[in-house]
Every structure is written in C-alpha cells, then in structure tokens.
C-alpha cells in the first residue's frame, strides 16, 4: 500500500509535466471581501467587515477569515481572525480546523476552531464552526446564506448568522446559550463578477445574559440597521 502511495506521489510530480507543461491543480490565492459596509447603528455609523482569504490547491487550502465592527470615531468594537486548514472531504464540503483569536472586545480570547464549510442541498451556503476556548469555554457559530437571482447581475441574498456560548463571559459580554442572531437581506449588483456594491437591511437581536450585559452598558439588545457596502474578490 505504501509502495503504491509512493508511486502515486512520483507520478503526481512527473505527471504535471507530462500534460505538455500544464498543471491541472495550480497553487492559487483568493481574497474575498464578502462584506465591507456602513451601517446606521443606534450609536452612530458603524463599519462592518467580513472577509476571507485562501491559498492552496483543489483539496487543501490555508484559510483566513476575519469579521468585525468598528464604530466611527471609536476603536474596533468587535473583531476576530481565524486561521484554518481547510480540506475538501465531500464534493461540496470542506472540513476546517484551526485557531480563532478575538482581539476585540477586551480582554481577547483564543479558541480552537473546528467546522464545516460548503454548499448544502438547495444551494444554501453554510459555514458552521464549533469552538473550544480557555477554561472550558465552548462556542458555536453558524452562518447560512442563499442567493436569489433577479437577473444575471442583480442578486438578493438573505443571510442568517447566530452564535452560541456554553458559559457566561461577563468581560466580553456574552451569555450562555443563544447569544445573538442576525438576519440580513442584501441586494447587490455585480458590475463585474469581482465587484458588487449592495444595499441591505440587517436585523439583530441579543438574547438572555448577552442582552442583559449589553443593556447594562447602556447599549441596545436589538436593532434594525440599513447597510450599504460592496463585495469584492480577486
């Protein structure tokens, strides 16, 4: 068996040269800013980002994800970065594992991340990740997105995002259980595939202790925000 694997490896190395200098699986890089938007939050205009980047080949990639929010005139309110190894395990699914660092709010938190990302039947884009943090903290995040094509270029995209935590964390303002849920609806126009401005509306709600913490700090536990931004990739 080992021998066969070695042979396959040798062939893989030679093989790409055999096809007339063509490599079927080139090393590629992609940056994808899914959201870069301004939203009319209750306490001023907020800038929200949600971006990903990957580098690698068909089945194995290094994957970076970052999302966060910054209120205008203030520092970053929320922000995290994930570094994941992504491996294709099924035709439409990648298994992703790595590390997440929440650099805002203070104090920062670190998590092991393990999740799946892919395209579910009926064409729902799903990203579901479980996290294990310090002192036995656990968390889960789910995002589901769908695309409805009004035309070839005008696309309506409903989205659901939610976060769950196993323990209250007063310092970072999250309570156990379902902490927050957001429903978004964005309408984008793809001027070219790589660039699409959009407008949309985003409703979010904090639940349980998370809501309590937010209110105790004088914030809201729920809001409807209008957003405008653009999507970009290359």
């Amino acid at each position, binding site marked *: 068996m080992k021998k066969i694997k070695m042979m396959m490896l040798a062939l893989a190395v030679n093989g*790409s040269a055999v096809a007339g200098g063509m490599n079927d699986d080139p090393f590629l890089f992609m940056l994808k800013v899914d959201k870069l938007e301004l939203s009319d939050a209750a306490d001023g205009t907020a800038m929200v980002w949600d971006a990903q980047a990957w580098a690698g080949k068909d089945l194995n990639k290094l994957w970076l994800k970052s999302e966060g929010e910054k209120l205008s005139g203030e520092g970053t309110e929320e922000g995290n970065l994930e570094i994941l190894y992504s491996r294709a395990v099924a035709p439409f699914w990648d298994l992703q594992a790595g590390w997440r660092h929440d650099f805002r709010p203070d104090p920062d938190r670190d998590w092991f991340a393990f999740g799946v990302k892919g395209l579910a039947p*009926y064409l729902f884009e799903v990203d579901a990740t479980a996290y294990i943090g310090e002192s036995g903290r656990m968390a889960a995040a789910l995002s589901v997105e769908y695309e409805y094509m009004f035309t070839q270029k005008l696309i309506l995209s409903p989205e659901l995002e939610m976060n769950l935590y196993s323990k209250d964390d007063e310092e970072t303002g999250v309570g156990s259980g379902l902490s927050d849920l957001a429903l978004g609806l964005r309408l984008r126009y793809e001027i070219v595939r790589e660039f699409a401005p959009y407008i949309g509306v985003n409703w979010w709600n904090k639940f349980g202790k998370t809501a309590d913490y937010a209110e105790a700090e004088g914030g809201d536990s729920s809001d409807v925000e209008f957003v405008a931004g653009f999507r970009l990739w290359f």
Partner: protein
Amino acid sequence: MSPSRRRFVQGMAMGGMAASLGLTSRSLWANVEQQQKIPTLTGTEFDLAIGEQVVNFTGTPRIATTVNASLPAPILRWKEGDTVTLRVKNNLPETSSIHWHGIILPSSQDGVPNISDGFSGIAPGTTHTYQFKLVQSGTYWYHSHSGFQEQTGLYGPIIVDPLEPEPFTYDRDYVVMLSDWTDEDPTVVYAKLKKLSHYYNFNERTHKDLMKDLKEKGLARTWSERKMWMQMRMSQRDLADVTGYTYTYLMNGQTPADGWTGLFRKGEKIRLRFINGSAMSFFDVRIPGLKMTVVAADGQYVQPVSVDEFRIGVAETYDVIVEPDEAAYSIFAQSIDRSGYARGTLTPDPAMTAEVPAMDPVPDLTHMDMGMDMSGMGHSMHDMGGMNMKGMDHGKMQMGGMDMKGMDHGQHQMGGMNMKGMDHGKMQMGGMDMNGMDHGQHQMADMKRKPVHPSDFSSGKVIHAPTEYGPHVDMRAQAPQYRLDDPGVGLRNNGRRVLTYADLKNLRGTNDPREPDREIQLHLTGNMERYMWSVNGVKFANAEPLRWKMGERLRITFVNDTMMNHPMHLHGMWSDLETGDNDFIPRKHTVIVQPGSRISYRVTVDAEGGWAYHCHLLYHMLGMFREVQVS
C-alpha cells in the same frame, strides 16, 4: 447589452474598407478573396514558424500564438500517399509542439510532449522536423499540444487530397474553421474557473424564468422539476464553462462583426469543410435556406445525409455540400450556450449580404442529461428530448391500441430511436406491439435499416469505480443511456432536421468487422463547483497509463458522469463509433459523449507506442486525460 460587451461578442469590424474605396464588383470579389483567405501551403516540404503576433479582435491589441504569422495557422494541403516533411521552428520563449489531429502516423510524429515516443516538445529557438506518410484523405487540423497555446491561436486546417476520386462532386472548396478567441490570459481563465466555476455563465435561470414556470406549470410542477437540481446543487444552464462573456467566436479568423465571406458563381456546388478548432466551444451550425449534405465526418466518408443543422464538438470536422441558388446565405454557428456565434456569408456577389438569424433560446438541461432513470414518463415531454415525436404532438400519428408496456422499463432507450418516420406521419403504429423496445432500442430504426446485433447495445453493466467517490466527483449517472439519436440539449425538437450520430454510416462499410476482444469502461468524472476533471475519478497526474495490446480489437464504452458534453479524442487509432449498423461503422477521431449518457466505439489497436487520450475541452484535459501505451 453594453457597448463593451457587444464588442466581445461581435468583435471589431475591420473589413468594409474595400467598399469605401469604390472598387468595382470584379475587383471587390478579388479583394474579398484575398483579404479573408487563410494562406494555403502545398507540397511535401513545409517550413512552419511558431511565433507571437499582435492581433486585434475586440478593439484591444493582444498577442496571439501563430504559425507563419497567421491565425488560423496556414491550411496545409497534402496528398494521400505522399510523405510530408514539416520543419517546425519554435520562436516562442517557451516549449511548443504541433499535433496533427486525426492523422494516422507513428507515435514519434504525433507531437504530444512526453507521451509521443521520443518527443519532449520543441524547445525555444529550435527546429523540430516531423516526417510521416499519409495513409488517409479528408479534412483534419493541427494544433499545439503544449500549455494553453491552442487557446491563443495555434491551430490550423489540414486537407489531405485523396488518391482515388471522391464519391461526390463539387465546384468550390472552402475550409470553415470555427474557433474561440479571448483577450484574457488562459491561465487567468483557468484560475477564475477554479475560484468561481460559473464565472462566465450569464445564462443562469433567474426570477423571470421562475415566474414564467410558476405561471405556466403551477407551483407543484415547478417545484418538482427544479427540486432535484437544487438538491444536487447543479445548474440546468451549465452548458459551457467559458462563454461569449470573454470569447469572440471566429469563422476562419473573422469576427462576427466582419464575418467570413465565401464567394461562389451561379450553379456551383460548394464543399464546406467545417473544423471546430475551439478551445472550449461547441457550435450548432446551419445555413438558413440551404440543406447541407454531410459527406464526411472527422475526415472519413459517410453515407450522404441531408440536414438543416449539425452540432460540431470541439475538434470534430464535418464536410458538407451545399447547392445555393443565386442568393446570399448566412453560415451561422451559435455556441451551445447561445452566448455568441461565429458567422459567415455565402454569396455570389460581395455586395449581397444575408440576414443573420437570431440565436435560439438558451436551453435547459434535463433529467436525461443528468443520466437519471426517467421512470414515470408522465413527468414532462422535455425529458424525452431525445425523441423526435413531433408527429405525436400534431396528432398526425395513429397510435391507438399500441401496447407500450415496454416503455415503462426503458423509456429512455427511446432516445436512441430514430422515429423520423413519425414526424411525417407516414407510419401507422396502431396495434403495434412495442414490447420489443425492451430488447433493443433500435428496433424502430431498423424498419429502415439492417438488423443490428443485439449485443451491440447491451454493453456491460455500468459500474462506478471506488475512485469515483470523494470530494473530486460531484455526480454519477444512475442510468446512463445510449443516446445516439439524441441531437443534444438545445437541438431537440427545434423543428429542423438535425444531424445525430445515428445518421453517421461509413460509406464503404466497416473497416474492421471483427468483434471486440474485450471492453473497457471509462467514466468521465468531475466536480464542476471545484472545477476538477478526471477519468474514473482519477486525474491524469495520478493515473497509470492504459496498456493495450498490439493487434487487439477493443470496445471502449464511455459513461458520462457529468452534466457536460465531453469530446473525447484518441490519438493514433480510429474510434469506430457504434451508431446502429455494424456493417457500416463510421470512423471518427473525436467522439462527443453527451451529459449523463453512454456511448461505445471500437478500436483496432494497430499503432505501437505512446498516445494521448483525452477530453478536447482545453480546460478539462489537464485532468480528464490518459496516456495509452500500445505494445
């Protein structure tokens, strides 16, 4: 359509100069002939120089890869029986090669780097000499087998004139070479497909189509028709990976804005040698107002068949004969996904032009194209696309009392049936027992044809290899059928007589009447979303060569486990395509395997050495490729 988009689809108009110079009709004729001619080289000794050349098809200058500064490369006109010598100088900064597509020759002369015996490509600045004897005649072509050079222009026609007189006559002989040009770097095109496989597809079904379906079919049927596609995460409009969004389709190197012009004189019969030299594009070709008599396929004579339209897969060739009246006609070649077209004009007078027809609507793939078992014919008539049952629609046919039990078990075997007779309502089918359909779908066709051996179409059970399961394969056809008589998606029931493989019959009988010694089943596999392509789930880089024995007679059965057409090309040996009559098996070099279907051909293994065997879609062939070793 925005002006810039139109420019890609139409290309730039560069002709029209002659008219403004106020030339007389006679000099205009000469001018058109001169201007639009692909240079022709004849004889037995040829000097070809591969190099870079600035071209401008869209308004933006680009560098193309050319032979003797010509795009398409010069027509090579050879004579059967001659030994030709071709000195090919590579002036590119990278390795190049030329493969003589469809020409039977020793492996060492076939021109595939690192597969053809002793050939590793033509290094920059060096000259390679090819030499081989021509043992065939007909229409073929040549192209680079290195990198993406074929996409950037390295392709040209080959005509081999026969020793024996031809079985048809004509007064004028034109090559019509179709191709696809992009201003983009092909490596960028490939990277885009990997990142977003539908990048170039602007024909997806949208809100408008949904509303139309809901209105016409109601909620329940719309849902049931679309459900499976959504479950499988596939697009019914996945017809072409690379489209008119980036491609400008060319006819003899002319953009649609210019159009190629073929002149004729009153009363002449014209032979048109269609060659699809595209990287990725299938074309549906017709000449409104003219019947085309197909006389050769892939360079080999077939029994003449008169059609209105034919689909030409990448790398295929068809020779047709037309007999125009004294009028102008459009040669119209729309891409399979209707995102653009190449066009030309046949005219007795350069000043006379013909109307360019509108493109057909964008078709939807059906469950049949997915290789589904279509039990329950009630579903919809679309699913039966392969069947030409127009007669039924018009109620011209008497079908009362027909016992159609057999259809329950294998109704899409009917896809293979030639029911043309029904079109004309000439056939009385009342009381006919159709149980026979179970046993061989060609029974109907056989009313007009010789009987076929039942074994021909009862090819082995479809087995999906363990290597077909994994993240690299997104679909396996559950019930792939022979669909020889299916003109294919977009051409079914379009009211025109469309050529199908079932129409192709060798003019002079089967070349090798031996029964196959063994059968090899090859599955065409891939993952559209990840843009990965393979054979039996194993891409070329990981595959062992196929080892064939000199002298054996093989049957290859392809099963297409994808939603796309794949033009499969075997180098060095003929593909004897089983089209329905064992005594008149046509020989091809490139065979379209329709989505979700299967098809079988025989190969007489009579050429020693290493041979390439691959899908001729340029961005598929990197993975969907095998080396064949014959010893």
